[in-house]
């Protein structure tokens, strides 16, 4: 493959993140003097600074169209491997905001002391590199490589706390991921065999014209690719690893998995579905729609029975993925990005609140540990109620309401009535899930109400998330402007 031309601005953000990752690792390795606090703060600042710079750069590139690693094609326009366009901008913004939030949640005294700081931030930045490349990728090889670059650091992060639960969680996620990669590669090889190209754009143009005998092979190949991603984003029935992994990892890492890793998977699937593998009218879209319906229903129903906060968030995040898959199945990128953005902001906030409770209350895993928090710890309690209402999609959480609304609109406009009915049912089940938690928060305080001095970085991150969620609730238009 001969690379003919590249607009380097399109690769600026992943490159910057990769440089940041190396810098963090070097600083950690050569840091000898000074306190642990100083080291941690410096590393946090560098990581946060790199991500923030990327975010500013992305925002300055709005409405840009910058392809990279392109070559002229025999037919049609040039084939490119990485494209910076409004959709990429929106996805990158979401991913970087998520990464920034996780960095904030991992500041000094928040991250548990037995986790090595340098490695943690290195892995985080590396995963972000993969995530950003994945969102901009336009050929299957890049997609696979980027996906691996997201995944491998994730397992390492899960296993960073070297105890039994952590190792088990990491191993589970790792095995599932290897399996999913194998399945996906299998599908990709068939796709290449059928269409003769790895470029999504070329696949999409050649797909309608292929030999009718090969149609079924192409369908199976697309199915395998989607199933591979189904493992990554934990769509039902490929979700078995998620609850154990979420509850086994440190809370910050769980937040990372729920926010960055999951968004990356959704971004990759969005790129694949809208640009190549499943063009509009393809049967594969129906497969994704069925996946969406099953995922949201199973996730929400299972979440109804959870008594631990993190497990509830884990299962309900499966339900949220189902809602994300619905507009994805009909190819409405704008609705997907908006939903993802709202989800990322409030999930970060919710995990931030959970982290505070778990840090200050040993064994405080259960919903009953949150009893009376609106009274005893009003700031945190009210913020958590607000986050949960956004996740449920009810006033006052208008950001969640309107992103769900956009998902409904996309599905209805694409004539998927049955999916819309399943979604309506799931709005109810989802509300039941979050109301159990909200009810605990609103009860009268128990014997030992939860009231502590919350560390200022945690206060900062949670307030930022709450503030962002409020702004997005008043001006939901900004969510939909993200992806063009």
């Amino acid at each position: 493959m001969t690379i003919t031309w590249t607009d380097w601005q399109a690769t600026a953000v992943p490159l910057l993140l990769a440089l940041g990752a190396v810098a963090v690792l070097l600083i950690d390795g050569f840091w000898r003097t000074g306190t642990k606090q100083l080291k941690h703060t410096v590393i946090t600042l560098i990581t946060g600074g790199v991500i923030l710079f990327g975010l500013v750069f992305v925002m300055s590139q709005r409405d840009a169209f910058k392809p990279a690693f392109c070559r002229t094609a025999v037919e049609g326009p040039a084939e490119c491997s990485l494209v910076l366009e409004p959709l990429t901008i929106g996805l990158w913004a979401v991913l970087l905001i998520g990464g920034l939030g996780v960095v904030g949640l991992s500041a000094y005294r928040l991250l548990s002391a037995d986790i090595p700081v340098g490695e943690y931030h290195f892995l985080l930045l590396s995963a972000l590199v993969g995530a950003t490349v994945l969102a901009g990728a336009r050929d299957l090889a890049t997609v696979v490589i980027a996906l691996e670059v997201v995944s491998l650091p994730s397992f390492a992060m899960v296993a960073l706390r070297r105890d039994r639960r952590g190792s088990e969680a990491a191993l589970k996620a790792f095995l599932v991921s290897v399996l999913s990669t194998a399945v996906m590669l299998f599908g990709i090889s068939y796709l290449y065999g059928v269409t003769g190209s790895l470029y999504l754009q070329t696949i999409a143009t050649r797909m309608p014209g292929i030999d009718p005998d090969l149609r079924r092979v192409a369908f199976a190949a697309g199915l395998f690719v989607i199933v591979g991603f189904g493992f990554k984003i934990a769509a039902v029935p490929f979700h078995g690893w998620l609850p154990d992994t979420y509850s086994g990892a440190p809370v910050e890492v769980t937040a990372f998995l729920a926010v960055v890793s999951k968004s990356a998977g959704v971004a990759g699937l969005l790129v694949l579905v809208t640009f190549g593998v499943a063009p509009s009218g393809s049967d594969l879209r129906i497969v994704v729609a069925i996946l969406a319906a099953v995922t949201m229903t199973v996730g929400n129903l299972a979440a109804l029975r959870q008594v631990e906060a993190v497990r509830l968030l884990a299962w309900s995040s499966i339900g949220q993925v189902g809602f994300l898959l619905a507009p994805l199945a009909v190819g409405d990128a704008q609705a997907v990005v908006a939903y993802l953005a709202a989800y990322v902001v409030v999930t970060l906030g919710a995990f931030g609140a959970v982290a505070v409770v778990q840090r200050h209350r040993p064994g405080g895993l259960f919903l009953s540990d949150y009893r009376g928090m609106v009274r005893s710890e009003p700031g945190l309690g009210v913020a958590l109620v607000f986050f949960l209402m956004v996740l449920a999609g009810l006033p006052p959480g208008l950001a969640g309401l309107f992103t769900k609304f956009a998902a409904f609109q996309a599905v209805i406009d694409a004539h998927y009535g049955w999916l819309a009915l399943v979604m309506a049912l799931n709005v109810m089940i989802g509300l039941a899930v979050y109301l159990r938690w909200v009810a605990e928060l609103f009860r009268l305080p128990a014997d030992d109400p939860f009231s502590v001095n919350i560390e200022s970085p945690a206060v900062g991150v949670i307030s930022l998330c709450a503030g962002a969620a409020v702004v997005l609730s008043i001006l939901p238009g900004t969510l939909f402007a993200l992806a063009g």
Partner: protein
Amino acid sequence: MSLLLIALLAVPALTAAVLWALPAGTGDRVAAIVGSVVSGGVLVGSAVLWWDLVRPHCPCTYRLESFLGPPPRTLPGKIYAYAETDISWIPELDVRFHLGIDTISMPLIALTALLVFLCCLYSLRITPRAGRTRSLIALLLIIETGVIGTFSALDLVLFFLFFEVVLIPMWLVIDIWGDEHDRAGRRRAATTFVLMTVLGSAVMLLGFLLVHRQAGTFDLEVLGENPVAGGHGIALVAAVLIAVGLAVKMPLWPLHIWLPDAHAKAPTVGSVLLAGVLLKLGSYGMIRILLPVLPDATATIAPYLAGFSTVAIIAGSLACLAQTDVKRLIAYSSVGHMGFIGLGIATMSPEGLAGALYANIAHGIITGLLFFLAGGIKDRHDTSDLRTIGRALYARLPRLSGLLTFACLASLGLPGLAGFWGEMLILLGAYHPGDSLPRTTFLVLMVIAGLGAVLTAAYFLRLIRQLCQGDPADNPATAFAVDVSRIELITWAPLIVLTVLLGLWPFTLLDYWTFS
């Protein structure tokens, strides 16, 4: 841009935020006073808005009428918006912040403001045992914002949004301040209420989105001008979805199962607002959205709607006959009354529609009063079980039981009181249903509904007989109980006066609703 209407929405919500922001040590009394003052202000504001709506505007309207003759016959429920605010909110989703009122919504807004004001006033002295009055008042004010917003929304999405605003606060009101003897029961009641309603509103949203797909707009004014034609296909599906969604809220049989528990377990002020105001969101939605936006499709489903409404009348009345709990009995009577309103809407005739609107207001006032009275009885006896309370309330609490008898008579539709005119007009409407509807069906339904009215009389008389009459010697007072206190008299008096006024001068309101 109408600042007054926006203030009616914003002031209660902002006050609620201020109440929550006050330090927890602030007395409950202060909160109740603040709530009363603010909701009183909202009531005054809505009265001013009403006057502004109906006062003769400059002579130009007269001139127009004399040139063009009387205005053309219009679709019932179509909006002639006044005090409009129309701002683009989310252009990507085609959502506008479009508010406005007309003579259909204005009386309902005033009713809301009145009932919330009375509830706050009532809370000055009488509060649920769970305490936390500050939060209770704040939630009542948020409910007020949501309800007034629903009544003044001119955009389908905005309607949906305000419709949902009410849910969580009402859930909290039932869950926290509900029946203190039955914790699991009140939790179950609250959750059933919120889940069924949210499912209903999600289904309704699907209907709205189908309307948008057909018509390309959510704006009720535009949709009123260009209704979605056709009585089958997508339009029919949209109408069914919207009707089902609203029927959950209203509630129509068989979607009423959340109602008895929610009303019975809620605290007094919660029951009053649930029955007096929240149920009206459903019937208002049917009049405002179903009839003008989907006229043909509504005509297709109208006989079914009427049938379910008639079943609701009979089923509600029969259920009432079997109740042993005074709050549950009144709750089931609401099912019957809302059935009448559903029948009136389904006739699609001017009489039936005017009757439905009138019954809406009358039911809000009378059932509000009934729930206040039932709450009073419950507070005095610490139970609402008829068997435990015992009989001979006339002897023990003469004024309270007198008022209860009055409210029961009003509710069963005694001529001369508010409940009569609405139901009479609805039956008249069923006698002359809209042109496209099967008249025979409606005649049969009219007869059955008439029987339902008789049943209504039967169960209310049974209630009076079981509760109020009897030999005082056999039924000694079970608890220390005072008769009607001053605050109760103050809060109930407006409702009593309005019941009589609306019974004697129905045309003060009916004149607004001549649709042909």
